[in-house]
Every structure is written in C-alpha cells, then in structure tokens.
C-alpha cells in the first residue's frame, strides 16, 4: 500500500540525512521525498511517499517519531487529503507535432512555458497518477527530459499538521 507521510522537523543540518539513513538502515522504501522550510524557517516540512503493509508503515512512523529532530508527523493518506506533484517536461515539438502536443497539454491543464523551433517545455501539476497518465500519452522518442518534484500533500478540511 502506498502511504504519504508528512513530517515537521527541525531545520537543522543533518536532519534530512537522519531520515534518509533511517530508511536505508531498516530497509524501508522511499518512493519520493520532498523537503523545504515552512513559514517558520526553523521548521522544515517533509513529504515522504513510501509503501508497505500496515505493520511496516506503523514501524516507519514510530521510528521517524523517535528521531530527535522530528517534531510531528502524520500519515496523510489515512485521511482525506490533496496530493500535488510538479512536473517539468521537455519534448520534441516539430511543426507537425505542435498542435497535438498543445491540445494534449490543454486537456491535462498543463502549460507550455518555453518554446523553440524544435521543442516545448511543459509545466504540469496534479497527483502522481495524472502525471503518469500524461506521460503515457507520449511516445518515448518524443521525450527529451522529465523532471518531477515528487508529491507533496495536505489534509482536506480544517485539520492541519502544525506546531
């Protein structure tokens, strides 16, 4: 099962390494990881996408909680939540391909943000499955470069993860 764990942690040197080395040492999966400071620059927010059965996810959350730098955490995939990932995509766009690429980008509510005579850069956000679906519509030979941020997420409703 795929889980999204959101963490608030001290914005200290080595905090990221502690989280990463915990996953490596205990053999847990990290599918994606994002981290950046919050509105309070002494605190970072991290989003980890991982997978495992209930017992493993329980251990992951407990072991993360044990890290001294971790202030709070929440498995947001257990409640209603919104998930977003940013993708930047560079594709070959010759004259004959341009209309179709533009149409496809519009359908997926993406934007073309850079254009040359031979290429487009497309910006797209959404949950990871949507980005996957967009990529599935392109031929591998069309793709020059894919950059994905990894998912971030937030709970629906008034409840939030804060200090």
């Amino acid at each position: 099962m795929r889980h999204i764990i959101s963490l608030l942690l001290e914005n200290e040197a080595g905090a990221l390494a502690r989280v990463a080395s915990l996953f490596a040492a205990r053999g847990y999966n990290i599918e994606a990881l994002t981290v950046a400071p919050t509105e309070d620059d002494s605190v970072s927010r991290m989003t980890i996408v991982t997978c495992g059965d209930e017992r493993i996810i329980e251990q992951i959350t407990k072991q993360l909680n044990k890290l001294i730098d971790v202030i709070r955490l929440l498995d947001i995939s257990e409640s209603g939540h919104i998930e977003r990932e940013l993708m930047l995509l560079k594709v070959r766009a010759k004259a004959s391909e341009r209309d179709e690429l533009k149409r496809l980008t519009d359908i997926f509510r993406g934007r073309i943000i850079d254009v040359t005579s031979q290429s487009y850069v497309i910006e797209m956000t959404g949950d990871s499955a949507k980005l996957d679906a967009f990529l599935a519509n392109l031929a591998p030979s069309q793709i020059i470069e894919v950059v994905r941020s990894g998912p971030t997420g937030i709970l629906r409703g008034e409840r939030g993860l804060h200090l």
Partner: protein
Amino acid sequence: MDLSGAEIVVQALKDEGVEFIFGYPGGAVLHIYDALFGQEDVKHVLVRHEQGATHMADGYARATGKTGVVLATSGPGATNLVTGIATAYMDSIPMVILTGQVPTPVIGSDAFQECDTVGITRPCVKHNFLVKDRGELAETIKKAFYIASTGRPGPVLVDIPKDITDPNVKVPYHYPDSVSLRSYKPKVKGNPRQIKKATEMILSARRPMIYSGGGVVLGEAASELTELTRWLNFPITSTLMGLGAYPGSDRQFLGMLGMHGTYEANMAMHECDVLIAIGARFDDRVTGKLDEFCPYAKVIHIDVDPASIAKNVPVDIPIVGQVKPVLTDLISLLKSSGHQPNPEDLESWWARIEQWRSIECLRYDRKSTLIKPQYVIEQLWEITGGDAYVTSDVGQHQMWVAQYYHFEKPRRWINSGGLGTMGFGMPAAVGVKLAHPDADVVCVTGEASIQMCIQELSTALQYKAPIKIVNLNNRYMGMVRQWQEFTYESRYSHSYMDTIPDFVRLAEAYGHVGMRIEKPEEVRPALEEAFALKDRLVFLDFITDRTENVYPMVEAGKAQHQMRLPPWISTDRELA
C-alpha cells in the same frame, strides 16, 4: 563568567556532576585536555584504546544508572569509538561522547585526522550534534545529557571542532539547569485506560507468564516488578538483559528464556495464555521462530519506546510509558480491584511448570576430571554470595554466567546483550570497579574475547581497579565451535587458535597477579585466594573442558519449545 570553549566543556561536565571521563588525547582535543589539566573535580581515566573508553563508560553507566562520559580526538579517535557506541546503543545505555573535530574552516577538506564523525555514528546514536558556534556549546552539552538519560536511554555524541575550543576566545558561560526540546517529549505515565484493560486481562489469566527485560533494570523498577510478581503468584522469566531485576534464586523465577533459556521458562512461554512483557523487546534470541512464538497468548506489552511495541510480535494491550510508574499504577489498580487471579488455575499451571522444572535442564557432569565451566561459575556464585558485579564478554561463558550465576539484584549483571561485543567485559569491569571500589567486580571471559581489549589491563593498574578476571580457557571460540558442531558437521573452521598467550605471564607483565588452574579441585581454592587479594587484579586462567556445550539450545529457525537438551537429559517422561 567568560570562558573559552575548552573551559566550557570542562565546566559543563563539572556542573553536570560528572565524576569520571574516560578518554584519550589527540590533536583536535588538545585545548580540552589543557583545560582538564590540574583540576580534580572530573577525574580523567586514560585508556589504552578508545574502544576501551566507551566500554568503561558503559560499565560505569550500567552499574550506577548515571550517564557514562567519553572523550576522544577526531578521525581515528572517533572511529575507534564506534563499536563501543553501537554496544551502548543496542542496550539503551546512557552515554555522552565528546569528540574533537578538525577546525571549522577545514571541515570537508580531507584534513589530517578528519572524518565525518557525525555521519559515521548517526545510525548508532540516539542523537548527535556538531557544534558550530561556541555560544551554543554549553547548552548542547546539556541537551546531550538530557537526551541520553531520558526516555529510552542511549548514547549521544557531541562533535566539537578545534577552533570552537580555542583558549583565546572567550564567551559568557551559562549552564542551564534544564532544557526542553519541542521535538522530544518522552512519555512517563501509561495511559490509565490501557492499564485498566491490562488488569482485567491479568486477572482473567489461567496460564499467565511474566517476561521481564532490561527496561526494568534501566527504569529502576526492580522492586515494583518483584511486588507485582509476588502479589500475583505468577511465574516469571527474564531476558539476558533483565537478569537481577527479580531475585534469581526465588521459587517463582524460572530462569532466563530464549535461545539458551531454561526448559521450564521456554515451555511456560510457549504454553501461556497471557503474556505480560515488561521492558523487553521480543528480540530474535528470545522469540525463536516468530510464527510459533507464544501461540496461545494474549500479549500485554509495557515499554517506554513505542517503536518496540508490535515491532516483531503483535500486541493486544500496548502500554507506552516508563516501567516504574506504569507498574506502580498497575499494582495499585490490581490491589484495589478486590479480585485475585483464580487460585485453582494457578495451582494447576504451577504443577505443570514444576514438572518441566523437574528435568533439571542445567544439570552437567560434576564428576569430570576436567574443569567444567559451569562449575567455575557456580563456585564463583557461592564465593561472592551472589552479590558481585559480574561483567562478561560474548559467547559460551556469557551464557553460563546467565544460567549459573543467580543474580539477586539489578545492575549486577553487565554484558553486551544486543550487539554482542567481544572485548566488552574487561574494560566494562574497570568502569564498574571505579564506580564501586569496595564491591567485588568480576569479568568472566574467554581466551578469545579477552584478547580483543587486553590492553586495558594497563589502565586497570594505573587507576587501581583490582578486578578479578575469570578466563574460561577452552582454546576455542566456544560458541562458534558449538554451532559448527551442531550445524556444520563439526568442521571447526578457524574457530581455534594455535598461539594462545601465556596469560599468567601476560598478567604479570601488566603488573598484575596471574594464576593458572587446571584441575577441578583447584577451582575453589584459587577463587578464594584471588578474592582475598583485595588490592590486586587477579587473572585466573581456568583450563576448561574443550568440548562443553551450552544447553538447552533453541537452534536457529526453531520454535521456542523445540529445545535441544543435553544428551544426558531425556524428556521421555510424560511432561505435558
């Protein structure tokens, strides 16, 4: 008061009430050593290898409950500490380690004696710090002591670059009385609803079992454990780390459980219907094959570390909190309930246990003309009245102490249970002896383990730590040999040594007394003679039966009740 970084380190240790610091000087800590010079409040113990410093601090911590303190230089000084830090981490021992680091401006430049100490130790510490601002040094040291000694204890390392300790730069010094961290709030009391549920389950048990671990020792809850066990009249077993929390000679104590546990303890675990786990972590050496562990039991688990709960074994009633307050609440709730466990159920349960016990699984050949290692431990137990501090290394001798030295009190049994570190015992004993100079302190070891930190014999002389070393010399790495006998058709691949030193002369060369004992009838007089030499370290080299094995044994992959008993004991009799 303005102090340099080096002075801050020493003053902080004084303000923390640190008695001993175990260390070894080097370039990156020279400023700190200069600040240590000529003061007597913090006694520095100069070891011969940094690993020895960690084990001494560890032994000191285990015997006293206080935090052990280590000081070493950067690079190789720090890397030499790693085994000892990992040892303390696995057994949840409070320790603060101060390491020197190369000066801040050259960090990352592969400078002389530079290594990424914080990175190298990260997986085996509770937490670590790199101090980049001397203004934060005092508070960081306070945080280190606080984190090391609270919650589930563990080692905390503070890495201090040399420029931070510069004697020429002074800053105002303030050592806080306490610190609080928003990200670290260890739980103390257990949830009352969970404790209530636990009392109901305990009172309804028909075949109960108490399984107690090192957390009871660390959590200073031995008297609560004893009170609870006696009030309930339940059978109790202990892990290797928990021995001594409940009196080892008491009728209700079934001995240690697990891979080399007693027949009665492992059978009772297998058959019980309610298991009360207290400060224990269901280690693989305890559970054996997980799928068949305690198949009929509902499990109550009390532990300060939530991550220990339901890690290996599903738990029905988890109680997160310090063992002492949780047991106190549990006892008062049980006593005020007006109920007791059903005495008839308990009586028939005890009758079954006594049947298991009647096979006397720890019997061994007492008529042998060779020295049996078990006999040495039994004699040691008698001579010391069961009241000595006993450290050990790792292997057969460690198991024999656990089986034959019946610890009556907590903090008397000091061994590396989690990491299984050979070389731990002797330096640990030195640390214990410095903490308890008037007590009998014994290191039980083997000829393989003792050589791993033998250099600390020199430290023992310098700091007047007249411990007794009981070397069970079987000319083999005994536990390796035993596994090779059982599972590798006696192919003894590299498990013996052809060139074992003359330990008597070696002890003498280090300035101590050496004795070699080769006959069973010499065992007791030799021990008596050694303990009469109060002021001398005595190295007793017992030449033991080479082929003795540790029984019972739950072999790898087997379930707890599938024990290999010694060939001279049969369970043919109806025991069910």
